[in-house]
């Protein structure tokens, strides 16, 4: 049985851990608010962009644009977006597992798979596979639009050169503060947005004056669309990461509290046993003296 001192030290240690996890929980909550705000700020841009894309691409022949070209798929690139930091429960593990599943499936179909890793966790994890073509560690903390553009240009260049025939995004979708789900989304070739998919939002189908020609506008719009997609996914992973960390740290704090109460029980029992043993000793001694 553990000595009183051991138990006491253990209680002290667990208490300190609880302090840290609680602080991390609060930091994650604050950062989550920031990340969600960024998502909210981004929404008008994304919505307007979708509107413009829809009103354009409806009237256009998609095969005209190299970024929309559907080819026979021989090689696929996965963009795996994870967080830079750990201690957020199984968030990253789920994303990486999903990516591995996709890789296994594609390889079984005889397709070549390459990886682009965004975020340190994924970069590290997939390094040993030797399939990582490019990795962007340490950008999830403070990424901007130009980071997203860099990534988008990289994969687009590879797609245009015929190196890859399809690009998929694997990331952690932000469903709610409590739920984050690994998700897979096709990025390239860009699929034409049809009017029906937009749903309830009304899209004006007026005849626009295009400056320059519609095709030339599309040439500008499509790469921008990729940036917007990648940026959006990065925002989402950012928010998911903080939400996951918040939950994980909350669970850890609860576990610490449980542990402390268990340890206190053990401590009290041990103390009580000590007192009882001492009492028995005294009583025994007294009895013997009475003799």
């Amino acid at each position, binding site marked *: 049985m553990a000595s009183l001192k051991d138990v006491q030290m253990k209680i002290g240690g667990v208490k300190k851990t609880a302090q840290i996890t609680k602080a991390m929980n609060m930091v994650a909550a604050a950062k989550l608010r920031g990340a969600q705000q960024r998502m909210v700020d981004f929404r008008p841009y994304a919505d307007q962009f979708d509107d413009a894309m829809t009103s354009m691409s409806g009237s256009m022949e998609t095969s005209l644009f190299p970024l929309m070209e559907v080819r026979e798929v021989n090689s696929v690139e996965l963009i795996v977006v994870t967080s830079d930091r750990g201690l957020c429960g199984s968030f990253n593990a789920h994303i990486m597992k999903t990516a591995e599943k996709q890789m296994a499936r594609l390889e079984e179909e005889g397709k070549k798979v390459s990886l682009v890793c965004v975020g340190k966790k994924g970069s590290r994890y997939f390094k040993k596979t030797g399939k990582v073509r490019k990795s962007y560690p340490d950008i999830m903390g403070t990424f901007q639009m130009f980071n997203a553009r860099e990534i988008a240009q990289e994969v687009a260049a590879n797609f245009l050169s015929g190196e890859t025939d399809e690009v998929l995004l694997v990331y952690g979708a932000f469903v709610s503060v409590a739920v984050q789900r690994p998700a897979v989304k096709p990025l390239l070739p860009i699929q034409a947005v049809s009017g029906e998919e937009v749903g309830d939002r009304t899209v004006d189908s007026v005849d626009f004056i295009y*400056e320059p020609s519609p095709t030339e506008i599309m040439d500008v719009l499509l790469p921008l669309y990729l940036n917007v997609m990648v940026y959006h996914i990065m925002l989402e992973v950012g928010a998911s990461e903080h939400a996951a960390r918040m939950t994980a740290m909350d669970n850890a704090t609860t576990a610490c509290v449980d542990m402390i109460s268990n340890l206190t029980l053990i401590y009290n029992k041990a103390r009580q046993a000590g007192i009882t043993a001492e009492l028995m000793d005294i009583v025994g001694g007294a009895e013997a003296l009475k003799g």
Partner: protein
Amino acid sequence: MAETIKLEVVTPRGAVLSEDVDIVTAPGYGGEFGVLANHAPLLSTIKIGVMSYKKGGNSEQLMISGGFCKVAANRITFLVESAEFGREIDVDRAMRAKERAEKRLAEVIRKEEHLNQARAEAALQRSLARLRAAGHQPS
């Protein structure tokens, strides 16, 4: 009172501006163009440059970079990567950025790195636009 048009400037970091204005001038694909109330629907790409608008007697200038603009239903929307009010631009900083960009451009041209050249040119254009938006005439 003349009719007004609704001007909106949206960037990935949020809406910068939403106001009813008299006239908007923007750096379009084929050069500067002006938009008044009830303009015909238009979709144009936007170059790095200065967008200005007038409201009442006041005019305001913004540096905008990379994107496009849409005119429909008496509303003009700019979707750009960044937008900064001229009055909020730090001229000294922009000057330094311009000098940096010039130096860099000279260097990449000397080394013939074509990929970086486009980037350096864009950086220079941005810093020049910033200066112009701030009301600073480059000498």
